[in-house]
């Protein structure tokens, strides 16, 4: 299935990367990159931790993902496909966009969901946590 998203980029409803492969790379930090603006920085602000601790947390989230947490895949301007997941961790809802480029694993996004996300398993990750976490 191949359809344009609201932003005009293509989306698919099946994972474009093997999750186990992404997770092996996430477990090896020198094989992984984390985007500062969309993943490292918002995670550091949300958890009030240093950037180093935030990046470790981001990669640990990828390691903890399961296939049932999958939402959809999207093609970004670099023409690569990235898989989007949503999960709860430590009382916070997280939106995770992850993929593999020629340079290895890339975590594009890791922050609170901007809106409620209904995953492939039918469960919804809300944009505001019931636990009342920081925005």
């Amino acid at each position, binding site marked *: 299935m191949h359809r344009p998203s609201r932003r005009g980029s293509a989306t698919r409803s099946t994972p*474009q*990367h*093997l999750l186990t*492969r992404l997770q*092996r*790379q996430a477990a*090896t*930090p*020198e*094989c*992984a*990159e*984390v*985007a*500062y*603006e*969309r993943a*490292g*920085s918002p995670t*550091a*602000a949300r958890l*009030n*931790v*240093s*950037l*180093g*601790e935030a*990046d470790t947390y981001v990669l640990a989230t990828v390691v903890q993902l399961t296939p049932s947490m999958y939402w959809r895949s999207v093609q*970004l*301007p*670099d023409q*690569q496909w*990235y898989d989007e997941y949503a999960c709860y961790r430590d009382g916070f809802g997280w939106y995770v966009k992850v993929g*593999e*480029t020629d*340079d*290895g694993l*890339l975590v*594009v996004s890791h922050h609170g969901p901007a809106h409620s996300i209904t995953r492939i398993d039918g469960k919804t990750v809300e944009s505001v946590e019931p636990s009342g976490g920081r925005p």
Partner: protein
Amino acid sequence: MTKKTIRPVPAVHARRCFACAHGTIRLTNLRGLTLNYRDEPDLLVTRDIEVPRCDTCGEMPLKGSDTKRLSVLLEELRTDRKRATVTKFIAFAESTFPDVPRYEWEQAFGLSKGYLSRLVTTRVMDTPLEILLSGITASPREALHLLSITRALPPTLSSKLSDIARR
């Protein structure tokens, strides 16, 4: 899905940005740029550090070694800014309210005795206190009035606030 072998992220080379359609990611010196970091907006990078950065949208894909270097630098800059806020507040308080002893300020803020001094040297203050100190330094009358609504101010500070209000 194509089978590829897992390998370390190679040394940085210029490449198309994944986040925006137009930019190129290349090694960039961040000195002179501002970054939002933790609770600090627009933190000015005052030292040389080269990391991969998009020349259009500013996104930075960081691998382990880059992250460590940037994290250490940002933590230092964040701590410096917080200490500067305390130092500025103490200088302001001592010049504008010379009769108010420091422990009265600490009492008004709900801090233990000597805490303001420790913030200058060893401790890193949290965001709400930083906002409060910045507010008092910038506009003491309004900030102290707001504080007096929430809790009874110590005697000397309370009388000084009354003096300011009468002016």
